[in-house]
């Protein structure tokens, strides 16, 4: 039977017209080698068993699929389940990919790791995997993000990682990716780049997807156990799109399951201060991939804006762009204000403080749950915990909460 899910990427790394390999020649050989090494590793039971071992014993998988009864009752619509990626070691889904790629790097004989980070979650996850597997690690982080996420910087340093501040451009995630790519070009012979989202040149979007697929694979089994059927809708926030593609991919061939990706609308799409490339961007190339991109008429990349540093990226992963174009997934957006409401709603009703990123998915779920029937089922990917954001949230809500 034809599988839509497995029809992309092509061997050229295309998802429909999206994706590809737009990188300097110096990186091409490394990408070709990486692709071969990844395919070979995933076909080798020694590797997949090792990965499974660390995911279970070290990361703490499987994560629960929790029925959020209080939230369901509060909203008075569809039954809401939360996929608790926030309960992973290091507090987010990012570790799934970081462990996978670090094991892959080790298998390829690379001793050094470079990574970028926005909010710091991927940086912490990578620093953690490198500490565990005895790899040398350097993480590039925008100077603006370093200011916003001081604690995560310190966490990475405790884990033995070198954090490099990026002072160029907008000093945020996209500039950290630029710096990490430059570092990789210069040190490509002994260094692997652990890209943190479903972005970048082929094969990165596929590698990240395949290491994050476990989210959706577990969810599928768990919901069948609990409800005896698949959900009606699956919701995930999307910056570059790693937690979303991990959740979506195992459901892509189930046409009855609606897939909702939630972009960050920042101050509102019409203000121009947002991170919603699908809602408000044009087609373009950045960091190796053809995708929806925030840019001006001259093709200069624009800064993304979101209260959540993890969604603050001007592009969307190529597979999401493809799922949008063929109409398989629906993409909508949630503003900073709505996300903060979502964060408070989940904290108050369930005693779960979500990351600001995940709060976008919660806020969107609150909207659609009320329009659905009581016997409908929604699964939300709760991609990370909110401890890292308490400082940011307090700065905004300060008065009324304290």
């Amino acid at each position, binding site marked *: 039977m034809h599988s839509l899910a497995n029809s992309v990427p092509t061997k050229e790394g295309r998802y429909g017209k999206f994706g590809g390999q737009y990188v*300097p*020649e*110096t990186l091409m*050989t490394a990408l070709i080698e990486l692709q071969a090494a990844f395919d070979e590793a995933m076909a080798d039971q020694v590797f997949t068993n090792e990965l499974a071992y660390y995911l279970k014993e070290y990361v703490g998988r499987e994560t629960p699929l929790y029925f959020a009864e209080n939230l369901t009752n509060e909203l008075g619509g569809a039954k809401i389940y939360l996929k608790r990626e926030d309960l992973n070691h290091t507090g987010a889904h990012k570790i799934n990919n970081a462990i996978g790629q670090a094991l892959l790097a080790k298998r390829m004989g690379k001793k050094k790791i470079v990574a970028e980070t926005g909010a710091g979650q991927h940086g912490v996850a990578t620093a953690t995997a490198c500490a565990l597997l005895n790899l040398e690690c350097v993480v590039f982080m925008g100077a603006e993000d370093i200011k916003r996420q001081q604690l995560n910087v310190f966490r990475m340093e405790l884990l033995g990682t070198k954090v490099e501040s990026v002072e160029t451009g907008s000093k945020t995630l996209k500039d950290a990716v630029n710096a990490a790519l430059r570092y990789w070009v210069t040190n490509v*012979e002994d260094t692997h780049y652990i890209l943190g989202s479903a972005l970048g040149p082929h094969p990165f979007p596929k590698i990240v997807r395949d290491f994050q697929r476990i989210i959706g694979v577990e969810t599928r089994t768990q919901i069948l156990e609990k409800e005896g059927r698949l959900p009606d809708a699956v919701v995930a926030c999307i910056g570059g799109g790693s937690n979303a593609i991990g959740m979506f991919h195992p459901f892509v061939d189930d046409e009855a399951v609606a897939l909702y990706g939630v972009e960050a609308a920042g101050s509102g799409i019409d203000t121009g201060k947002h991170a919603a490339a699908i809602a408000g961007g044009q087609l373009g190339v950045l960091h190796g991939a053809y995708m929806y991109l925030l840019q*001006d008429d*001259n093709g200069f990349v624009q800064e993304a804006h979101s209260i959540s540093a993890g969604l603050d990226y001007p592009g969307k992963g190529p597979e999401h762009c493809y799922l949008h174009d063929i109409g398989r997934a629906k993409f909508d957006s949630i503003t900073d204000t709505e996300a903060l409401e979502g964060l408070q709603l989940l904290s108050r009703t369930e005693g779960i403080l979500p990351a600001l990123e995940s709060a976008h998915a919660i806020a969107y779920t609150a909207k659609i749950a009320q329009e659905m029937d009581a016997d409908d089922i929604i699964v939300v990917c709760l991609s990370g915990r909110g401890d890292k954001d308490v400082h940011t949230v307090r700065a905004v809500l300060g008065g009324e909460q304290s």
Partner: protein
Amino acid sequence: MTTLQQAIEQVKNAGNKAFVPYIMAGDGGLSTVKPTILSLQKMGVTAIEVGIPFTDPVADGPTIEQAGERALAEGVTLRNVLETLASFRQEIAVPLVVMTYFNPVLAYGLEQFASACVAGGVKGLIVPDVPLEESAILRQTLNPHGVDIVQLVSLTSPPERIARIAAASQGFVYAVTVNGITGARASFATDLEGHFQRLREMCHIPVLAGFGISTPQQVVSMGALGDGVIVGSTIVEALHKGNVAKVEALVAASKGTIETSTPL
């Protein structure tokens, strides 16, 4: 033979080495584009690489990135650079090679970009984030307008791949001399000679060395490996500081004259 290749072959046939300076267009404002190009032309350079600023120049080191940020602050774009070139096209005799990242070309529209290249007298195009695999669309669109697509080969490219790049590249083959980004280097890998020898055997068009070349001595030593050199960051820095003597010394070195007393 294309205009660009012909210009390099002429230098080669005269027993000399090609010298291609890179400039960041509009570093100092759009009004600097014309005098900069005309003065380099007068110095006798082989061709000029006209760099277009971009927000995310992943192949460039700090010198060119900062020049790009200055140009962006001046409102310089791919479009207005090409319009500026068109405005004094009659005075341009030296082949111009535009170097731009891919996204500004896509935003311009490939066909409109091709027409603007013709109007601006552009003879070649280098897009550092479009490797061989993605480059067919550029050749299809720009070749009918007399614009060569120059491909880069790197130290990491295996021989089989170098052969394919050499076959596809037009005008010349741009041989990257370091693993890394643009910018000055004190030293280079030791196996460069072997690398260039293999390159020259595989390439039916001239081979120019680029990335990291910053002194008259390096212009001579790296030029000797192939058919000449491309010098970027050092030229950009010198032009930014108004140090014309330094640019002249680099051009002179390519013609076999090294003046050790030159202020560097």
